[in-house]
């Protein structure tokens, strides 16, 4: 393929330019993969080297350190206390005590059962109606993972403790003064203030987001479903069995899981596309209409639209869902018998239209803000050149808008892919159809499908598989789009 210089590129016609760009895009793919390979290799090498260096430092510190340091390898915080940094030492020592107690009385047991997720079954005695619960696979998995987290945290702290010793020794050797407890406290609100601030939010994220996600990823490799529900039943590891279902295209007779997954993914993407762009353009249109010169009562129009943001969706959407029933108010007013929720195509159109009602006001607000930032002289000069409103829109407003809102469009696209509320509250995923696995619905998004699999069928293993796939789709999409759109700007340039 011919490489054009910038000047040559300018001379090309629009279609030639497009063709050139597409060609360039594909030409870059192998290179991109090569770079990715190099990056991954570099990453692995970096980790390997890091671990090697870490061991080296740990061993060297032990060999070269004084006896206080050596004891600290076993009794955390000993060195710090011995050198007068009581506060630090106590915290280290306390952490070690807590860790040991935790492992002995709680974590150790769960960790040791993690490989099999429990074997002891529950025993039910029918005569007396009693039960002796056996092992609980759910708890083993949950607390096992928690214990792993705790071990990582312990290793980190232990390493910190060694590092402390090394640094302190150095300071003493240099005849400088060690930080006192007072210094430490002051650092917490000054130099190290970011650590203080981050402590609670990160712990929250670790326990309530990272741990659960870790857990669910692991569930995708177990047989946790309706027939293996703790506490009565055990579940166990099944390797890639659940994933095999996802990639088995042919099913002898019934509807296959993989086919249904494909269909629902397709509809999820179609939905996200229409939901995002219909909102975007109609929202923009309405915003421009309101902001037009000569239109009065701007604030009133805006306030009226914003109503649909102000009322919790579960009220407004559930009400609207009932409005569109065959016996609801819409059919009542029209005097018709339209089955909005019963017909697949109609239901899909209806949810997209109703979603406008929810989404347009946001866009209107966003667009209003941006419209005001477009330099007015652009329009003035366009006016002088005799550009008509459409030309002004397509040459000035739209490009500017797309440039500024590129990242926003992406997040709202992925947000719509996971737009649980609108679908669940309006249709519940229906109308359900025969040709889908588990009779999933025609308006089901991946997210509502996984929800009903988990809640109605207790099919957590497949829900987990779908959840991971949703993540992969969103991640890939974001990665690709972020690399294409022009307005991913450097965050530093604002300051």
């Amino acid at each position, binding site marked *: 393929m011919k490489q054009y210089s910038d000047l040559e590129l300018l001379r090309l016609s629009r279609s030639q330019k497009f063709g050139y760009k597409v060609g360039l895009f594909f030409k870059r793919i192998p290179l991109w993969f090569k770079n990715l390979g190099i990056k991954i290799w570099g990453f692995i090498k970096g980790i390997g080297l890091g671990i090697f260096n870490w061991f080296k430092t740990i061993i060297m510190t032990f060999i070269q350190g004084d006896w206080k340091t050596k004891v600290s390898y076993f009794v955390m915080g000993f060195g710090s206390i011995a050198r007068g940094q009581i506060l630090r030492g106590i915290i280290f020592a306390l952490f070690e005590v807590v860790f040991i107690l935790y492992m002995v009385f709680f974590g150790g047991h769960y960790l040791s059962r993690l490989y099999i997720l429990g074997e002891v079954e529950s025993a039910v005695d029918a005569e007396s109606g009693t039960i002796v619960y056996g092992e609980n696979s759910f708890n083993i998995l949950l607390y096992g993972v928690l214990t792993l987290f705790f071990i990582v945290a312990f290793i980190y702290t232990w390493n910190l403790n060694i590092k402390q010793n090394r640094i302190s020794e150095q300071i003493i050797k240099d005849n400088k003064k060690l930080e006192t407890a007072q210094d430490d406290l002051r650092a917490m609100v000054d130099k190290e203030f970011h650590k203080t601030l981050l402590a609670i939010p990160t712990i929250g994220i670790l326990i309530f987001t990272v741990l659960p996600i870790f857990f*669910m990823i692991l569930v995708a490799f177990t047989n946790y479903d309706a027939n293996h529900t703790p506490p009565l039943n055990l579940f166990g590891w099944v390797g890639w069995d659940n994933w095999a279902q996802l990639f088995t295209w042919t099913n002898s007779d019934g509807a296959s899981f993989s086919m249904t997954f494909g269909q629902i993914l397709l509809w999820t993407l179609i939905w996200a596309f229409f939901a995002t762009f219909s909102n975007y353009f109609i929202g923009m249109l309405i915003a421009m209409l309101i902001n037009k010169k000569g239109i009065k009562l701007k604030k009133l129009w805006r306030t009226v639209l914003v109503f649909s943001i102000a009322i919790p969706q579960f009220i407004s959407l559930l*009400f609207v869902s009932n409005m569109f029933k065959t016996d609801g108010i819409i059919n009542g007013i029209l005097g018709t018998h339209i089955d909005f929720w019963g017909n697949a195509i109609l239901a899909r159109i209806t949810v997209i239209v109703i979603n406008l009602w929810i989404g347009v006001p946001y866009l209107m607000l966003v667009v209003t803000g941006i419209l005001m930032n477009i330099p007015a002289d652009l329009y003035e000069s366009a006016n002088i050149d005799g550009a008509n409103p459409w030309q002004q829109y397509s040459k000035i407003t739209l490009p500017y808008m797309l440039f500024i809102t590129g990242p926003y469009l992406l997040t709202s696209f992925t947000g719509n892919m996971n737009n649980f509320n609108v679908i669940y509250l309006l249709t519940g995923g229906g109308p359900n159809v025969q040709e889908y696995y588990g009779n999933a619905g025609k308006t089901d998004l991946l997210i509502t499908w996984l929800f009903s699999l988990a809640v109605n069928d207790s099919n957590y293993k497949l829900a987990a598989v779908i959840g991971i796939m949703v993540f992969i789709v969103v991640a890939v999409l974001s990665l690709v789009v972020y690399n294409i759109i022009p307005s991913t700007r450097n965050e530093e340039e604002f300051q």
Partner: protein
Amino acid sequence: MEKKPKMVSMSKRRRTVNIISYITLALISIVWILPFIFLLLKSFDVGNPGVTGYVFPEQWGFDNYIYLFSAETNFLQWYFNTFIIALFVCVIQTAMQFMMSYVLSRFRFKLRKPLMNIMLVLGMFPGFLTMIVLYQILKTFGLTGDNAVPGLILVYCASSGMGYYVSKGFLDTLPKSLDEAALVDGATRAQIFIKVILPLCKPILIYTVLTSFMGPWGDFVFAYTVSLGSQAGMNVAAGLNSWLSAANIGAHFAHFCAGGVIVAIPVMVLFLFLQKYYVEGVTGGAVKG
């Protein structure tokens, strides 16, 4: 003299355009507001408490509202629970988000980029997937069932640091020279955060408080799961939702509407009151992405 007729036609054209614009806007406004009018009208319908097809009730009355506050339902309990949750959540969530966004905006440390990337990736996992795990974690702390209120507060707040984007975008626009000047004056970082930066963040603070206050009113999935049927821990969305089951809707749809109105009022008043800040937050968030 020749120009005048053209001017008239121009202004005439403009007027027709304006009239069309007004008509369009009026139509749009009607479409937007109509469901709420229907909701309001239905809540006064005492003739037929089920789903109906007419706009104006045959019999008007306050019975549906009276029912909500009678001993027959636990609506007041649900409402109260939700109110408490919203109150705590809006304070804690705002604090968490500001801690996170201030650090990410003002400090440069080794783990900053990785932290931001990890949070971005975590945000891509569908949240509902982890519901059952969250339930179990809360149960470990004894915060489910009757104690669902603190449990829900914890769930809503714990990971809220991940929603730092909007406030960080705002903080990024505040000049760093502010911090530097204060540092020179001998203020600690904590003092700068509290005394210099926070006061400047009023609009975005209000935006964050507002959005986090509104969130709990609409959640029925987590609330339903965590409360596990306990009335003492139920929130208003999960409670009202139970009135729409096949067996209940015939007698309770109007009650649902009345409850919806009562729920919507405080949220709506607050929202319309603070609309200005909301607009600022939404726009800022979108532009800075």
